[in-house]
């Protein structure tokens, strides 16, 4: 899965035709073979764009930022990114007319160790859903697989589950990176930062982590698209914080 050339061509064309102001894609991170997102507003930077199975980060996250608001944006989306983008569209956060979407028929991305990501193995709709241009051949809908982590938790007893999550809450440092990297957390001011909530949960205690993560998961219930940006962003490497997101998929 290497669409670097195609994406460079499309981006260059879009800039040349004046169809976009900003292009969001991936580039090499400059020190190993992993990639980082890049926000381009100068056509000169286009040759740096790449797309391979290392293109992990969900780029629809960048659509909630100020510098893309009300601008014409070109971006690359995989299956999961496309799902979150759809939610942003249905929840009136972005205007479809402002976007030029390069959809990818995603074959699954790999983590830093080169292993296929768990969410890609379980992905039901790997193709981009809404797009202006599609790269690769769509593979259609796959059968639903129960998430391995959730299935694993489900067979555990109540006490084990409680202890497991206690550990997660205890190790959470409340940096809120999960929230900020989540493409669906676009609120003008997050509810857990507001006075009403902070009166009782302003501190970085495990108690606050419980409150924040529970609220977060309730707000994402039924919306989480399983892109695992949160997991990638967590500095404590808390596994499966996305898990609590997945209630009632």
């Amino acid at each position: 899965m290497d669409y670097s050339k195609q994406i460079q061509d499309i981006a260059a064309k879009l800039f040349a035709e004046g169809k976009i102001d900003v292009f969001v894609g991936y580039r090499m991170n400059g020190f190993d073979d992993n990639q980082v997102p890049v926000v381009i507003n100068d056509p000169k930077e286009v040759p740096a764009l790449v797309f391979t199975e290392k293109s992990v980060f969900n780029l629809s996250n960048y659509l909630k930022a100020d510098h893309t608001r009300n601008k014409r944006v070109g971006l690359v989306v995989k299956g999961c990114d496309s799902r979150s983008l759809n939610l942003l569209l249905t929840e009136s956060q972005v205007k479809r007319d402002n976007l030029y979407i390069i959809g990818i028929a995603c074959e699954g991305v790999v983590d830093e160790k080169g292993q296929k990501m768990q969410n890609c193995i379980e992905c039901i709709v790997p193709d981009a859903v809404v797009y202006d241009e599609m790269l690769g051949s769509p593979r259609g809908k796959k059968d639903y697989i129960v998430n391995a982590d959730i299935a694993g938790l489900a067979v555990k007893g109540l006490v084990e589950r409680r202890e497991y999550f206690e550990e997660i809450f205890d190790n959470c440092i409340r940096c809120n990176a999960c929230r900020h990297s989540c493409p669906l957390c676009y609120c003008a001011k997050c509810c857990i930062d507001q006075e009403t909530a902070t009166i009782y949960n302003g501190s970085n205690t495990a108690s606050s982590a419980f409150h924040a993560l529970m609220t977060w998961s309730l707000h994402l219930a039924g919306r989480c698209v399983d892109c695992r940006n949160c997991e990638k962003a967590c500095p404590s490497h808390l596994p499966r914080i996305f898990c609590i997101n997945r209630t009632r998929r």
Partner: protein
Amino acid sequence: MARVGVFVCFCGANIADFVDVPTVVEEAKKIREVKFAVDYKYMCSDPGQQMIRDAIVQYRLTSIVVAACSPRMHEKTFRKALSDAGMNPYLLEVANIREHSSWVHQKDKKAATDKAGDLVRMAVAKSIANEQLHEISVPVTKRALVIGGGIAGIQAALDIADARIPVTLVERSPSIGGRMAQLDETFPTLDCSQCILTPKMVDVASHPFIELIPYSEVIELDGYVGNYKAKIRKKASYVNFKSCTGCGACWQKCPVKVPNEYNMGIDTRKAIYTPFPQAVPNKPVIDAKHCTMLLKGKCGICAKFCEKGAIDFKMTDEVIEREIGAVVVATGYDLWDATPYEEYGVGRYKDIINSLEFERMVSANGPTGGLPVRPSDGKVPKTVVFIKCVGSRDKAKGIEFCSKICCMYTAKHAILLHHKVHDSRAYIFYMDIRAAGKGYEEFVNRAQVETGAVYLRGRVSKIYQKGEKLMVRGEDGQLGQEVEVEADLVVLATAIIPDKENPALARLLGISYDKYGYLSEAHPKLRPVETAKAGIFLAGCTQAPKDIPETVAQASACAAKVCGLFAGDTIKKDPMVSTVNKDFCSGCQNCVKVCPYQAIVTEDIPLGHGAKEMRTVAKINEGVCQGCGSCVAICRSMAINLAGFTDPQIINEIVAI
């Protein structure tokens, strides 16, 4: 800092016997914000209320907690006491220590006292977050809009107008009158439908307080109770009503023939037509779908013969706006299309007609001059089979509900048939006879005895042609055997369904409808006339199947409701409504989706101070909001709060326990 006064009531022995009231007062005094706490025998009595009023002044209290009976009982009383003392009445909180403590924990005084203390502490905590609220008063435009000019709309319009309130009556067809105008005689008295209806129609046309807008449709309704703005599209009639005298020269000369809707398509009308001779207004309109002049640009005969020059082929649709305060919806009913009954041969055999077609035939001004005839050969039928519940009460084929009026009108049809064709015989297949109503059972008996109508309890399984006749095979449930009737004519009492445009209308008005398209009332028993949207009322078959007396009763009820609404210059409203904090609103519009009253709309505001770029946020119409709080809980950004039940208030209560 908040200064709270706590007033604990003995309620005679009701509270004091089971809760140690002085202890509750002592506990309350320990709370930091409580500056004054006292108990009294009857807080709701005049001296009790006086204590509250005095303490407010003396201790400069900022909120009041009364620990007494349920707030559902005396909240209003104490609010009044507060406003008498010059304090905002919504700074009151009631701790329910009677229904929730003393009466339900009579065996354990300590536990009841502890609980009462906690309830007081919670109320104090909540009251600290209370805000001053002011009753919302909404100005009222005193004009009612009645949609539909059938008997329901006519009655409602007349009753409202008689109270000297202006009414705009909008009718889709060229004339008012509706279904009732199509009927011959009415059950159970067999008085002539036209005779009782036409005077009312004339009244409508001549009433100084009624503005009749025929041949038009409501296309938009904005606003909220007392302040609606309706857009009405007047369809182009191509006839200038002001100069038209209704002489009829035009339609007599018109060469185009069109099936006549008023007579259920049994005969024809012209492309320029008045629906029926007694039409109100009695002015013709041109049917643009069939007029050759409008379609091909040739003809124009009507214009030639119009002495007044009232024909104007260049007329276009016109949209007019009316500011109104209340709406009565009376869109009436339609007959269900019985085509799914393939075993009856509906559509295959010409001699199967529905009840309204029969009604038109036996009507004195009908296409056959009052005589029922077979559509196939024009002969007068001698044996007529009536089949009831075609579609109604048949979940598999059509509709689960009972259409209510078919039992009665079928009995009427049997009598009318007998009157018109003396040697005829009616066979009636029925499931049950539902004749609940004044004189109704007697009427059915009359049909059976007087006319010799044969009532067969059972369903018809098949109808097939045999020569000229239609063979109706069914079951006689009472004999328990199959019967076959050789019929000249079959009349189907098909189910009545709401007007097919009801769902679209409901969406336009912002009210709800059920799966059949009937508009939903606010409460099936106690609010059968209102809809969930304040200021919109329902009359007649648009809500459920009804006969004429019921329809008229509901229409008059609507009129009473409208008059009540317009009694004052403003409508007072509880201030406990939702408000949006625009800074926090992220514009996801989830609240718009969950609001049961369509009280939330969106607006565009600048992205930042003085910015040109816009963003969309929610906006709540406080006139419409009923204060349920659905939007508050759905709002992920916590941008919406419900006055009186804000998040800080409830959280304060939770952590104060």
